[in-house]
């Protein structure tokens, strides 16, 4: 059993995502908003499902009953583990666990592209940049100036839109406040979801919606037995879905 390295020193804030699988229609708005916010380029013409750069992947889990119940779509960003296996294997210290927030950050300029982290991640949520990022002529003007563009040859992943957290901190600091207004820090995917399947907040605040939702009987974590301690929780009213996904996860390809 993997030991939980950070379990004794849990961060002051625990930014947490809760995904309500009953609401997700697999529309792809979360992944699209993520790509717009984080300057992820359009797919290279040679890109496939395995080689593309996708920070928020939505996978389709089969119907929960033999009688053909509803299909479940499962959005899978980086699970922001409290005990992230990727951190331990990185020879460049290009992945950092922020003890103040619990966010697992990726530092592309340190990355040498060895992809050990991709092997170590049990959730397959990391992408390697096989191609130089390219946008059609003129479309560079639509890029988000708050996020730098990553080059070919490095690994990247979801960081809970940490640039929005920095902006919220700057706003709070300018207003002379120590803590950010929770409404100022909402990742792009959460903001975009039309069926409101995504909840985000600080689970260190016991009264927050995510703290309450993540603890109720319908919530679970993917591959919970591995002990990685993800801060992405899933909810489903279907016990078969809960049992299947928490035990086996969901894989692509």
């Amino acid at each position: 059993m993997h030991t939980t390295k950070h379990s004794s020193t849990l961060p002051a804030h625990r930014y947490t995502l809760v995904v309500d699988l009953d609401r997700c229609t697999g529309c792809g708005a979360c992944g699209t908003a993520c790509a717009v916010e984080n300057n992820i380029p359009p797919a290279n013409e040679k890109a496939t499902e395995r080689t593309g750069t996708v920070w928020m992947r939505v996978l389709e889990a089969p119907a929960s009953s033999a009688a053909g119940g509803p299909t479940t779509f499962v959005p899978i960003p980086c699970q922001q583990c409290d005990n992230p296996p990727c951190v331990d294997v990185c020879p460049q210290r290009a992945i950092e666990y922020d003890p103040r927030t619990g966010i697992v950050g990726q530092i592309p300029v340190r990355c040498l592209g060895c992809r050990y982290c991709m092997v170590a991640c049990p959730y397959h949520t990391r992408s390697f940049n096989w191609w130089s990022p390219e946008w059609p002529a003129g479309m560079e003007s639509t890029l988000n100036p708050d996020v730098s563009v990553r080059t070919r040859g490095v690994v990247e992943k979801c960081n809970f839109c940490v640039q929005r957290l920095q902006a919220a901190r700057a706003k709070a600091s300018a207003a002379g406040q120590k803590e950010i207004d929770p409404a100022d820090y909402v990742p792009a995917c959460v903001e975009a979801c039309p069926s409101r399947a995504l909840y985000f907040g600080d689970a260190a605040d016991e009264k927050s919606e995510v703290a309450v939702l993540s603890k109720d009987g319908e919530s679970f974590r993917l591959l919970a037995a591995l002990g990685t301690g993800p801060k992405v929780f899933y909810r489903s009213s279907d016990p078969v879905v809960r049992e299947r996904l928490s035990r086996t996860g969901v894989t692509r390809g």
Partner: protein
Amino acid sequence: MKLELSRRDLFLAGGGAVAGIALSPVPWKLLDDLAIWTQQPSTPTPRPAGPLAFRHTSCSLCPASCGLKARCFGAQPVGFSAVPGHPASDGGLCPLGLTAHHLAKHPFRATLPERVSGGKRERIDRAAAVATLSAALAACGKNPKRIFAVVDGRPGRSLSRTWRALATATGGLYVTPPAAGASRSLEALGKRFDGGSLALGVDFSKARRVVSFGTPVLTDAGTPGLLARLRAESRRRPAAERIEVIQVEATRSRGAALADRFVPIAPGTEAAFALGLAHVLLDEKLADAAFLAARTSGLDEFASLAARFAPALVEQKTGVPAGVVTALARDLAASLPALVLGGDPASAPLSAEAEAAIASLNLLLGAPFGPLPVRADAPREADGDAKLASATPFDALPDGSVGLLLLDATVAEGLVPWERLKRALSDGALVVSLSPFRAGLGEKATLLLPGPAPLEAMLELEGPSDAPLSTLALAPALLLPPKDLPLPEEIVREATAAAGLSLPAPSSGRAAALLASKRGRIYDPSAASFEPLAGIASVDALAELFARGACWIDDAAPEPKGRFALLREGEAPRLLEAALGAPSALPARLTTLPRESVSAAPPSLLLTKLTRETTLFTPPAAANASAARA
């Protein structure tokens, strides 16, 4: 010993030094650094084009007309988010809307008129465009086989008056495509009301059962994400209050996969299935008797028609087990309010007979005025003395009759298929598209007069015609169009004048018409509040609100007096023949990205993230074409 350094010694020392350095790590380190440098090509550096600001407008890409909150640096939007509480979208936004700001820079964007001549596409100047169009306009009307037709994807706008006047001046047709979503089945129901047509919408929040014959109610139709949200919220409530979606369809579409129950059915047998449900409802006295007695007529005739569709016969026709038919009918009756929808022309079109059977089924379930409320159209400018052509339905466009076809920029190929348009064209017809893109119908046109791209011009946006209440936004532009972009409406006016025809001056009286109605409320997204329209002092004040991204929403319409006919005159034999005869399926359309089929613009290239780098969606034709060109 005398130490002397010869020239030879110097050469030896130099050579040794070079050899020594070559054997040291220094050159290899330099080479390595150089290799790394060449391996890391420069990447674009995003720079803010000005100070950060948030602006509001509405999305024009599909009929949902969702509210947009744009994050802009200077005049450049870099991202959108939905507007919570917006009357048209209530916080919903789809992938197309999230990437609307990319479209002005789309590789298929055209900024100059183009003409296809001898199979080759060439750019032409404004004068040549005017000359080509005026010659075609002058030739129209002289030959009944070469009439003029204009297709308007968003009727009711001020610009629509120009197109109607043009159709009148040329003796041509003003054609409107079918509305997407559930509108067809609602129209079929509205036509059964006493004294003509009654406009109805869908209010999912008032339904406990939603039966959909192929219409993607959970994914593509109506406000993005609304029904999925309502259904999920209802799952936390007692069983009696839960919303369930039953999808009846020949293929296991995405909507079918997400539905609570999927009923696979033989293609083209929808009318028989609906009549089978009606049979059980009437036979077991499960229909809404109070509604039938008070608000319908022709029950006996309909009952004798439905009596022929016993579940065993329906099983033979549709392939759906008789027990499933009976159980579904009983469940619907036990879970009122329930509603039935179908006939989305963009995904699963149905025959007129199937739409009629669905309308009758809604009456048996008492759906009108509950989950199917009455709605009024948004106020429009009165025609006054102007002679304006009335609308011709797209289905009624005669074959081989059109010599000049004008396609407005709002026409979506998913609702106006090119194959059907081609049938209407006569030999050598000129097809003019006002699309700003060399894609979809714009690619098929022989004369392309590109106008402003989405977000580059103010647009009148009415919400979908199947929404429970009408909405209207005069959505402000966020981007400047390219310099010297010839406006297609001006080219059309010049060509009309050159052809010796006259058009009324362009009008912009929509805000005035709305204000005069004194109906409804207006939502100001910057203040996140509603204000009664009657409280707005002037047209200028209203225009200023719209310029800030406001959206108007109508009041609930009163319930009218009158009755619905369960069967229209002469309908029973046709319905019987269609339901008992050989299945006649209309071709279902392949849906790709959500709402792509009802959008007049190609999707942003960023949506290749969804079509090529995930298995969520089938790659759309536009993305394939783009990849081939790249």
